[in-house]
């Protein structure tokens, strides 16, 4: 049996109220919210967050199962002519002996990776992240969303059982230029939305019928249909055309259509929905992706699903993350995306990261691995070759702390230091089990931190200089799904 053994999703903390757009942009917007990546999150960061959850939660063994391949998909690759998947690989602390490649740079690439993984062999981690934007006031801006999603595909194994068995995959391909972006341009362009629907409809139905035939199910036997289409409107129309009766939330009202991440994000949400339900096993889930053709995946849930959903925890489900966000003002959103050029602090901007230095420090920089002195238990962050008393050299053991939680010992708010989004909120964090590190906080307002605040680590892009993204870790409050919202009005602190 082959199928999905695990998944993880990442919704960034911030939400843009679409009604805030029109008063500034003169039009556009709409109802509901869209998910907004922090100024310090790019597609890689979102994918890393999702992949770390997928790797940690899909196994009963203490060490995450090492996949044989890592596929990273996005429409917004931080770098071209360089594999961004290697950053995901490093941040997940994966061993060197696997294939890690990018799938780019269209929305379809992520679903394509999932389909290929389901048809293939070995364990494959398919990770996607996307930061979707558009011109101020455009439908793309309002309808898009930022998210990360990751799925592990593998053969059934007692330590990491399949939670959704693949019954069929089918694809249909045709050249339909309804959405495009010239490399280097910030925003995509689109043709008429009705053209998309008309051109894609026969392709979707063709793949749909073939997939159902292979799976041996009829449309009314599909317990939950997940449709990922370029727009919510096209998706709704295509869903009706399939004849399936129960259609999953397309997340348009809360998250927005999150590009390459959206198919796996929506599928994860559907699995979480079924897994928490009364009769979780043996349910048929179908994923339909429309865009540059069509891809259909038909899955059947197993008895392992509910346990997996329970282990994930309510705060890490899509629904839980939707409920936990905090609003971001439209002006700040525009500045985060570089649309609004805001006066920076009169301080030097960080210089570009030295590639050799980053390479030497990779376990620390990308995977937050410190060192632990076996004689004293003292944890060094960053790692140290020499013990704290200066007496022993090269006796340290690695101390991987990326998954550790900690407590704020003291903190401050720096209103002068350079930041792409001032002020810097900063805390001295004592990690459970040892180790102290002074670290920048994120995903909170200045009045949300106190001595004693519980925090966890998150992989972020601190800044970029000379085109080199600088990735490192920040800490954020550990939030439950019911955490109180924090508002970040225009011109205020965030």
């Amino acid at each position, binding site marked *: 049996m082959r199928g999905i053994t695990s998944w993880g999703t990442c919704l960034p903390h911030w939400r843009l109220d679409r009604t805030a757009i029109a008063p500034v942009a003169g039009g556009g917007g709409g109802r509901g919210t869209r998910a907004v990546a922090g100024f310090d999150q790019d597609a890689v960061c979102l994918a890393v967050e999702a992949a770390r959850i997928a790797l940690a939660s899909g196994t009963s063994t203490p060490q995450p199962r090492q996949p044989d391949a890592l596929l990273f998909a996005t429409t917004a690759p931080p770098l071209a002519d360089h594999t961004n998947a290697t950053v995901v690989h490093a941040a997940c602390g994966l061993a060197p002996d696997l294939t890690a490649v990018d799938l780019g740079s269209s929305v379809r690439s992520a679903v394509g990776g999932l389909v290929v993984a389901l048809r293939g062999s070995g364990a494959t981690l398919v990770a996607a992240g996307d930061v979707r934007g558009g011109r101020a006031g455009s439908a793309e801006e309002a309808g898009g969303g930022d998210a990360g999603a990751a799925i592990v595909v593998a053969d059934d194994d007692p330590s990491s059982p399949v939670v959704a068995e693949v019954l069929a995959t089918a694809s249909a391909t045709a050249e339909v230029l309804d959405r495009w972006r010239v490399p280097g341009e910030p925003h995509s362009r689109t043709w008429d939305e009705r053209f998309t629907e008309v051109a894609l409809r026969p392709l979707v139905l063709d793949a749909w019928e073939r997939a159902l035939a292979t799976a041996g199910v009829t449309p009314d036997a599909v317990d939950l249909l997940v449709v990922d289409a370029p727009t919510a409107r096209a998706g709704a129309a295509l869903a009706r055309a399939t004849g399936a009766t129960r259609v999953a939330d397309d997340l348009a009202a809360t998250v927005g259509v999150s590009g390459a991440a959206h198919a796996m994000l929506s599928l994860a949400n559907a699995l979480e929905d079924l897994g928490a339900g009364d009769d979780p096993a043996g349910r048929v889930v179908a994923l339909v992706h429309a865009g540059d053709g069509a891809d259909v995946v038909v899955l059947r849930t197993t008895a392992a699903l509910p346990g997996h959903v329970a282990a994930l925890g309510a705060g890490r489900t899509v629904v839980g993350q939707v409920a936990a966000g905090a609003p971001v003002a439209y002006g700040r959103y525009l500045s985060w995306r570089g649309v609004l050029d805001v006066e920076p*602090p*009169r*301080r*030097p901007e*960080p*210089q570009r*990261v*030295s590639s050799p*230095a*980053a390479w*030497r*420090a990779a376990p*620390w*920089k990308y995977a937050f691995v410190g060192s632990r002195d076996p004689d004293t238990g003292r*944890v*060094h*962050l*960053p790692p140290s070759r020499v013990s*704290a008393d*200066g007496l022993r050299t090269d006796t340290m053991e690695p101390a991987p702390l990326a998954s550790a939680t900690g407590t704020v*010992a*003291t*903190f*401050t*708010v*720096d*209103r*002068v*230091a*350079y*930041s792409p989004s001032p002020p*810097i909120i*900063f805390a*001295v964090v*004592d990690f459970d089990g*040892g*180790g*102290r*590190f*002074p670290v920048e906080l994120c995903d909170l307002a200045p009045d949300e931190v106190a*001595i004693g605040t519980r925090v966890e680590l998150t992989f972020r892009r*601190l800044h970029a200089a000379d085109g080199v993204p*600088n*990735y*490192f870790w920040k800490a954020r409050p550990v939030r439950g799904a019911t955490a109180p919202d924090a508002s970040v009005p225009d011109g205020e602190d965030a």
Partner: protein
Amino acid sequence: MATHSLRDRVAIVAMGCTPFVEHWDKGLDDLAVDAVSDCLEGTGLTTADIDAYWLGTAQGGMSGITLARPLQLVDKPVTRVENYCATGSEALRQAVYAVAAGAYDVAMAVGVEKVKDSGYQGLNAVPVPGDGTQRTLTAAAMFSMVAPAYARRYGVDPAELRAAMARVATKNHANGARNPRAQFRREVSAEQVCNAPVVAGDLGVYDCAGVADGAAAAIVCRAEDAHRFAGTPLFVKALSFIAGNGGGLGDPTYDYTTFPEVAATARDAYAQADITDPAGQLAMAEVHDCFTITELVLAEDLGFSARGTAWRDLLDGRFDLDGDLPVNPDGGLKSFGHPVGASGLRMLFEAWLQLRGEAPPERQIATVGPGRTRALTHNLGGYPGEMVSFVSIVGTETD
């Protein structure tokens, strides 16, 4: 192995100091020439008579040529040193050691910094190529974490602590108002200090040292040769310096209410100078008041106040110009700004003026007298948990 006291083996026989202001019209070279000229004036010496030079500048230039070129020093050993914000003190330290070692008869320490050409707010370190994981916080933010930690540890009402921090600012600005070399020459009220725009944490603009350009210089020689120079020399009683290992940043027991490197240099210096009651035996102290909360904690780390009581001593006026132990009678970093390479020597310059009775009457302290002929300068660099610290003790009498 131990630190050996050089007490009374080396004397400071001349000093010079430029005004510390925004010298838009002067470059690093001009400031160095001005400070050295001021230092040589009245000594009968020329730069050719100085055997060796130590230049302290954090970011003003590389190598001794930074000083040799503008001063046209011919065939002289000139060494550029840097040790964070204690750079000026480091220059003095090296010059004293060279003379004590017998390598040179007469040496000069020069500290100079041209900060205002950068165009940035505050002080900024020259970036070293790195892996991108280093903190980018301001010093203000790092030191701002001390105030709430101190209030909590000693159960001090935050409003009272706030008032004590404001007292540091009002005291030092009052002193600076009486000093023609100071950058800020206006007194400020506690209300102004407390209502100033916030920089980091609870530190407002008036809780932070200013930013200025400046230079200072000192000539040192063997103590037995000091009589060749006019006036009363300052004998070096103690020099202590520690470069911390950064352990505080990663030590969960470090609570941000003390600077261990400072306490250690103070112990070392007091042992060298045989001081057992610093507040009673010293006539004055110049300390590194980069932020108001810093001076408060320094009063405890340097042994002027018992732990947890410096805030009260400040409010009681113990460290005022007319207090039991005047601290920063020249106005401190608060009034002078902090041209990094020069500040350590600027502190020493105030000891030079006060102990020799040369401070202007409106600033002359009354504590100098029989049995109290010594002054302390304290200079630090870095941050709580990761700091360099320097302490010197100088005095007008040999023991």
